[in-house]
């Protein structure tokens, strides 16, 4: 098996068997496996938003975390359709195969896909290209513009607390002011499973259903649910070049520069984002089982291995979030 081919609505292979099927687990006949517990929590979060907000939207990039989010949303509201639309902030430097996957997935589930384009903002003169060519920080303005234009009041993001230490402090329901900003000192305490989504006109709430998931949980869940992913998450031959200790893929975004020789390597992506700052890792993991084994043995975090934008400073993520980033 390489890339799994089942659709996103496949049935789970465990759960619901009743006490007999669960008896082998630690904690008695009614204990849930950790994946069942995380799934139940995420579904609860989706339904809370469905019940309390007018115009929610799911940030959907075609990356694995957003694919898992959509899968959970489909399960939360089945057999009815997901009552949310999708939003992608396209930097203009995204992987073509991921964009194709994004469009195909939205169409298959009959969901409306909004695309906020960084390129359009650059063309209109509202945003300017950065000297380093990285467009990741430029996503905030188109994102906030789309939220305002479509009057989205809840925005689901795939952020996980294990990814980064500023994210580790963010609430599941994270209130943003009319400028989209996050103020870590003024966060609402979040107790029990009681989420407070009240907000004033102009404000919105970012919602993170995968807050308590780790990278390994996401992959184990993808395996259990047989969720299809873009092929670049699995090992493949690709032309890459080295920059700042990362393997970047050449493309229209501008790489490589002089003195950056291109070579062919067997790689895969642990995260999928803007091509200018998302690195591939050397890998022979062509199947999901191999990917899980590789992640479990990895000595580097997901973002540490693959994201140049977080290496800018100790507080890079916190600073971007304060300005309205994901």
């Amino acid at each position: 098996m390489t890339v799994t081919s089942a659709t996103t609505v496949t049935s789970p292979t465990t759960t619901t068997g009743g006490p007999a099927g669960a008896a082998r687990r630690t904690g008695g006949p009614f204990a849930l496996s950790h994946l069942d517990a995380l799934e139940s929590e995420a579904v609860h979060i989706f339904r809370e938003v469905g019940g309390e907000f007018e115009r929610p939207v799911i940030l959907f990039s075609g990356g694995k975390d957003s694919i898992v989010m959509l899968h959970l949303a489909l399960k939360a509201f089945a057999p009815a359709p997901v009552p949310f639309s999708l939003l992608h902030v396209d930097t203009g430097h995204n992987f073509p195969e991921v964009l194709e996957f994004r469009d195909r997935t939205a169409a298959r589930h009959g969901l409306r896909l909004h695309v906020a384009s960084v390129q359009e903002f650059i063309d209109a003169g509202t945003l300017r290209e950065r000297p380093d060519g990285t467009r990741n920080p430029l996503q905030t303005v188109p994102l906030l513009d789309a939220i305002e234009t479509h009057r989205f009041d809840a925005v689901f993001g795939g952020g996980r607390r294990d990814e980064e230490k500023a994210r580790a402090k963010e609430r599941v329901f994270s209130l943003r002011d009319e400028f989209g900003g996050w103020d870590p000192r003024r966060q609402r305490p979040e107790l029990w499973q009681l989420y407070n989504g009240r907000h004033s006109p102009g404000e919105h709430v970012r919602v993170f259903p995968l807050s308590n998931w780790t990278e390994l949980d996401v992959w184990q869940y993808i395996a259990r649910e047989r969720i299809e992913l873009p092929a670049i998450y699995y090992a493949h031959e690709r032309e890459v070049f080295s920059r700042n200790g990362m393997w970047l893929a050449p493309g229209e975004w501008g790489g490589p520069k002089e003195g950056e020789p291109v070579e062919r390597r067997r790689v895969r992506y642990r995260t999928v984002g803007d091509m200018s700052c998302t690195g591939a890792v050397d890998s022979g993991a062509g199947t999901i089982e191999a990917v899980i084994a590789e992640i479990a043995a990895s000595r580097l975090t997901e973002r540490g291995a693959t994201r140049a934008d977080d290496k800018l400073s100790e507080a890079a993520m916190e600073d971007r979030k304060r300005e309205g980033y994901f």
Partner: protein
Amino acid sequence: MSSTDTDPAGPAGLPDGGDATLLRFATAGSVDDGKSTLVGRLLHDSKSVLADQLEAVEHASRSRGKEAPDLALLTDGLRAEREQGITIDVAYRYFATPRRRFILADTPGHVQYTRNMVTGASTAELAVVLVDARNGVVEQTRRHAAVAALLRVPHVVLAVNKMDLAGYQESVFAAIAEEFTAFAAALGVPEITAIPISALAGDNVVTPSATMDWYGGPTVLEHLETVPVTTDPAGEPVRFPVQYVIRPQTADHPDYRGYAGQLASGVLRVGDPVTVLPSGRTSTVAAIDALGEPAEAAWAPQSVTVLLDDDLDISRGDMIVTTATAPDVTRDVEATVCHLHDRPLTVGARVLLKHTTRTVKAIVKDIPSRLSLAESGGDGGPARHPAPGELGANDIGRVVLRTSEPLALDPYAVSRRTGSFLLIDPADGTTLTAGMSGDAFPDAAPGPDGNNGNGPGGEHDGDGWDF
């Protein structure tokens, strides 16, 4: 460089096929007690601190003039926390062993951050309270134990740390464990496990101590791995707050009408006679849809969709319960609360009350007392100060509320999920107060001057550690 840089020795927390259970726990204690060292050792020895994280911490430590890596920098994620060298907010950490996945809520210990400890404890199934073996039980220890008791954390671990500085003496450990167990039990903590450790030297954290052969119990990690995570939901009343009504109205499902929610407690079975609250209408469970698969039964905390035999008017905020275990509904709420916001809570305040999926208007009718968790009320419970007039940030107190609509509220002692609520400011949506229905502690009569007494340690000054 860009390789995945795998560890040839192999990982500690290997994949388990997804069948490991999940334990949520909280740690309480100050930096001086060695909490960061304990957390750091748990993360490090379970190989949850990865090379790039450790490198970042080492770099940041050096730039602050420290020689050894400061593991607190792993969890102090905010700029303000690193600049001030203190933990302000709850930090969540994730680690795994082959037996279990752990979500650790690392909470600041100081009195002014009590609300954060309350937050971390609200979802914890276990709390680790740290004491320094040289200092024994101090006011802060008593406060941490009281918060665990107040929030009904089922399991409490007393970690007596720095045993290396106390000569690894059994008598030191035994005296502290005895004193702690006595007052924690009086507060209503159901299960206490005391473990002598040295987080710095590694004794009894992950590996058994080579020095303290007089101790035959589990290490901290062994205990975390084996403690039962759930009570038996079969013995609990069935509570199913309705989150959302699923009505596809499509050609495939023209008549489907399902009530989506998460079981808050108990085991619900197809065929169970049920009552819908607050209306009191009755029906029978026709089917349970467990996220795409039909099921004969569902239990807390599963998210499912319930279908009933009768077409009733049910919407978000209603609660489906088994008729045999139906609670009374009420508009008069007595509760113990922790006030969270800097604006005080006052008698007469008009607020919103969010209970499960239901939000109603409420008025604060009375604030009969404020509790000092670090002070004993003489009967095991905390000291009560009558008629405080208002509750400030971090204050714990008793309140009486009247709601605009009836609530199916259980005592918090019966169900953490359906006995808890939030008070919210209707003007701006701010979360003001965390509430726990019913009596939190064994009943205590106020002393003559409203400030009656000292803890078993007898080391409090006059005003103690008021919240």
